[in-house]
Structure formats: structure tokens, C-alpha cells
């Protein structure tokens, strides 16, 4: 087991290098240079100094090596647009909010999605099942910007529940964005749990457990739920990564100053070092989330240890 974990952890290093390289390669394709704006021409000498300062006069592989070295020491470089601001400062300021929003939305999705799917599976083909599945299917399909806008329209404008329409300060301001963001993953978890639970209920070991006289409740909690949660763990990794790396839409609608919102601003302002730094940050988070999931998976299902690195 230790060997599996060590191997798996070491495997993330080349993964991160490749992802940084790809992001780096993509970013280099963007035309234009923040220092070469037409409105404010810069003398050639200053231009050369700027290029030297940011290493732009070097060949691409040296720039890449330099960037990787900086990332390894947790230095994402300076912002190209905002003077006296590092990408690190921007991450420090904006990321905690996205982390909290995504983390809470993830918890919401788990806490409501799993029971919803479980109840559906246990009462399969009842009206309860149909209602729950209708709700999940619709919740999964409806775009988050409609959900968020309708939340504001009904819960703030039409019937005042005391929620503000924007910001990220007290708990009141967090309820609507968290639910709006968590609704789609909740629906996805509910569908997933229902499907795998129905499958698990057909297994022979469930029949055995019943036959040896184990109470139904214990069968459910001990055998059915436990085995049905394995696919949820697999899906949970990318979902968590996806949620905490900032929601572009929800942060925009509720005016939450998180990384998702800042990302769009940075792209529009051509602040490439910020875009690059945030993309690498998002990728690393997803990679780490996948790592945790793989290790959890290895613990839950020993058969997978050898197959996966």
C-alpha cells in the first residue's frame, strides 16, 4: 500500500510538468505583448530591458525552465498589468473565496445528492423515485446562470428572505451562490448513486447477507451503501477540482471576487502571467484532487492498486 501511494505521488511530478508545458505552449500562441501597446510606445532600449527583466529575450525552453523553477518555489511571477502586484498576491486574495464557495457547494452536493440517489434506488419505480429523478435530470440540465438568476429574482426581489444579491461576506450572502453552484453536481451524484445502488442490490453477496438473516438496515448500511459509494469517490475528484477552481458564471452573477471572475478579467486585460499562473494553479489542484481520489480508491478497492500506477 505504501509503495502504491509513493509511486502514485511521484507520478504527479511529470504530470504537472507536462500540464505546465502545454499551458505555456498555448499562452505563447497568444498574439500581442502587454508592453507593445500602440497607445503608449516604449523606447527600444526600455523595451529591451523589459524583455530582459521578464526573460522574454531567451529561447522558449529557457523561459519554460525558468517558469517551472519559479513555480516549484511557489513564485508565480509578477502581474504584467497591475504594478507592484504579484500573481501570488492575487491568488492569496481571491483563491480562499473560491475555495470556500466550491468546498461548500461540494459538501452541499454530497450531503443532498447521495441520500436522494439512495432513496430513489431503494424505492425504485415509486412516485418518490420518479420525483427525485425528474428533479435530478432537470437540475443536471439547467444552466447555472438561470438557476442563479431565478434564485435572486424569487428569493431576493419577489420574496425577501434577507439574502443579499451579491458579495461574499456573512453567511446570508453565501447561501444562494453555494446552492446555485452545488445543484448540478448534486443532481449528478444522485443519478450516479441511484444507478450503482440498483446494480449493487442485484449482487449475490447482498442476497447472501439477507439469507444469513442480517437485518435489511444493516445490509443497506454495511454492504449496499459502502459498495455504491466507490464510483462516487471516482467522480468526486474532478468535481471537487472543478468546483473549487472557481466558477466563472456563479462568481460573475453574485459578484464574488474569486479566481473564476478574476480569470476572465485577466484574459480581457491580457495579463498573461496572471492567466498562466491561475491556469497552472487550477491544473495542479485538479491533479492533486485526482491523486487523493486514486489513493482513496486504492484503499476502498484493493484490486485497483496494481492496475493503476
Amino acid at each position, binding site marked *: 500500500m505504501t509503495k502504491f501511494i509513493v509511486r502514485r505521488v511521484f507520478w504527479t511530478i511529470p504530470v504537472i510538468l507536462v500540464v505546465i508545458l*502545454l499551458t505555456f505552449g498555448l*499562452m505563447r500562441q*497568444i498574439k500581442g505583448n502587454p508592453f507593445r501597446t500602440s497607445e503608449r510606445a516604449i523606447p527600444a532600449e526600455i523595451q529591451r530591458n523589459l524583455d530582459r527583466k521578464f526573460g522574454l529575450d531567451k529561447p522558449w525552453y529557457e523561459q519554460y525552465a525558468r517558469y517551472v523553477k519559479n513555480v516549484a518555489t511557489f513564485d508565480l511571477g509578477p502581474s504584467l498589468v497591475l504594478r507592484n502586484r504579484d500573481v501570488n498576491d492575487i491568488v492569496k486574495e481571491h483563491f480562499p473565496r473560491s475555495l470556500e464557495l466550491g468546498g461548500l457547494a461540494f459538501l452541499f452536493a454530497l450531503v443532498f445528492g447521495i441520500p436522494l440517489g439512495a432513496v430513489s434506488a431503494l424505492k425504485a419505480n415509486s412516485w418518490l423515485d420518479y420525483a427525485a429523478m425528474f428533479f435530478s435530470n432537470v437540475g443536471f440540465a439547467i*444552466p447555472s446562470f438561470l438557476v442563479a438568476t431565478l434564485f435572486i429574482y424569487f428569493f431576493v*426581489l419577489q420574496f425577501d428572505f434577507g439574502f443579499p444579491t451579491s458579495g461574499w461576506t456573512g453567511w446570508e450572502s453565501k447561501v444562494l451562490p453555494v446552492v446555485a453552484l452545488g445543484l448540478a453536481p448534486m443532481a449528478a451524484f444522485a443519478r450516479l448513486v441511484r444507478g450503482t445502488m*440498483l446494480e449493487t442490490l442485484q449482487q449475490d453477496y447482498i442476497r447472501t447477507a439477507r439469507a444469513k438473516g442480517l437485518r435489511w438496515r444493516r445490509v443497506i448500511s454495511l454492504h449496499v451503501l459502502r459498495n455504491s459509494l466507490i464510483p462516487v469517490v471516482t467522480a468526486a475528484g474532478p468535481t471537487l477540482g*472543478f468546483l473549487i477552481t472557481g466558477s466563472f458564471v456563479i462568481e460573475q452573477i453574485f459578484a464574488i471576487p474569486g479566481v473564476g471572475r478574476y*480569470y476572465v478579467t485577466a484574459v480581457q486585460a491580457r495579463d498573461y502571467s496572471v492567466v498562466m499562473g491561475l491556469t497552472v494553479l*487550477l491544473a495542479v489542484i485538479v491533479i492533486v484532487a485526482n491523486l487523493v481520489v486514486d489513493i482513496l480508491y486504492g484503499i476502498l478497492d484493493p484490486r485497483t492498486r496494481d492496475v493503476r500506477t
Partner: protein
Amino acid sequence: MVVDPTQATRRPVDTAAAPAHETAGAPIAQSNLWKDAWRRYLRNRAAVLAGSVFVLLVLYCAIWPFVSPYDPNEVDFALKNQGPNLEHPFGTDNFGRDLFTRTALGGRVSMGIGFGATLVILLIGVAYGSISGFVGGKLDNGMMRFLDTLYGLPYLPFAIIVTAIFGNVTFWTMVVALSIASWFTSARIVRGQVITLKENDYVRAAKAVGARWFRVLARHLLPNTLGVLIIAIFLELPGVILGEAILSFIGLGISPPDASWGQMAQEGRLVYRVAPHIIAVPSIAIATLILCANFIADGLRDALDPRTRET
């Protein structure tokens, strides 16, 4: 290939009745597979309903702009922000334009980009997956490691970077942006299918009689992945449609005057306090399309691959 016993006994009669095209090697059993699949699909009521709504939605977007009595771009502030009524079934927008007509036009853009990107995703997936699965060995291992590396990366940041690379966002930019970081799953599916099929006796037989690799691949392996690919279309479509909507909504969509559903939603967002139906109409259109695609994918999976059918 499974030989249907009823077919085998009826065969001489059929030949007498005679279509001349039933020569040796004609894909008889294959047409049966599709007929069977069609029959199984028709038994799934949710999938049939979803399929019908889907076809209606496509027809509405394709035909209505020609038939509509309203000019989709005619501005009339006297009519602005009307809720749904008899003359304007979906109401009018902030400029007094008929939303029923504009939704059809927006659907053309959204679905065009959606199907375009799905097609690109599948093409890359087929190329990457079939090479990896067919060649096997070290190359397969390396190619799959590379996919593992990219697995689970959020596609939106990369889509946003691509729109920044091209600067001016057009139909094709959008297609590239949405497919660049979304083809990993389809490559995996194709590779898995090719690897399973490769072990079949008819592939070995083909190799044994001296068929060259591209013939084995083109004639025996790829046609048999068609089923999974058709399912994959409807599995990929929702993500792509939603991705386009999100990009348009945050202001990185294709440039005006074309409007997609996402852009219509963004326009509606600005006036949601007075006219919430303007954001609701295109969003519900997106939701309907995604819902249909999900049910169609479920139905197709049951129909085309009976082994995985849920109880």
C-alpha cells in the same frame, strides 16, 4: 456476428424473391443489428419522447426563421420586454424583438457550434484512440499515460485561452476552443472498443488471410465502433452546448451580430429584474436540448449495447 436462425432457414426463399444486391459480402447481419437496435430504442418511452422533442427543436430552429412573420432584428421599443402572449409566444426582448424567432436563430448558432465541436471531438478521439488501441505496446502505454495526465483538467480555462489566441471569436474559433480540452474521454472510449474488438476471431482471420493493417482497421474495427460513437455524440453534446453558453454568458462568445442562446441569456441577465423571461427562454431551450440528449444517450446505450442494459 450472430447468425439469426430464422434468417438462416428463410434464406433460400429470400434469394428467390430476390434482390440482386444480396451478393456475397453484403452486410446483411449488420442491417439486422440496426433494425434490432431501432426496435429496442422504440420500446424506451422516455428515449422516444426525448428523441421526438429533439427532432422538433432542430426543425424549429432550422425552419421557423424562414416562416416567421417577424424580422428577428427589427427594433421596436414600443413592444419591449413583453411577457409571453398570443402574438409573441416567448415574449419580446429589451429591444422589442420577437423572442420566438430569435430563439430559433440562436439555436442555429448554439446547435451548429455544439454539433461542430462534438464532431471534432469524435474525430480526434477516433484518430487518437484507434492508433493507441490498434498499435498497442509501448506506444499505447505512452499515449494513455499522456491522456491520464490531462484527465479531469477543467476545459473552460483552456477554452478561454484559445479564444484569447484567436482574438476575434468566430464559429470555428468556438469549435476549436470547445474541443481542445474535451476529446480525452472519446479517445479513451474508442481505444477501449478497439482493444476489445482486436481480440475477436474475425479480426485474426482477416489478418491470417493477409489483410493489411489499414484494411483491418477500416473494414473490421472502426465500423464496429460506430455504435459507441453514436452514443458518444449525445454524451458529448450537453457539455459542449453548456460550455458555449457559459463562454457567451461571460462575454467571450462569438462576435455579434450572431447571437447564440448563451448571448441571449447574457442580454436577458441585464434586465432580469423587469423581464425575467428574457433570460429564462434561451436557458430553458438549452436545458431542453441537454435533457433530450441525456435521455437519447441512455436509450441508445440500451438499444445498441444490450449487455450493459440497466435492470
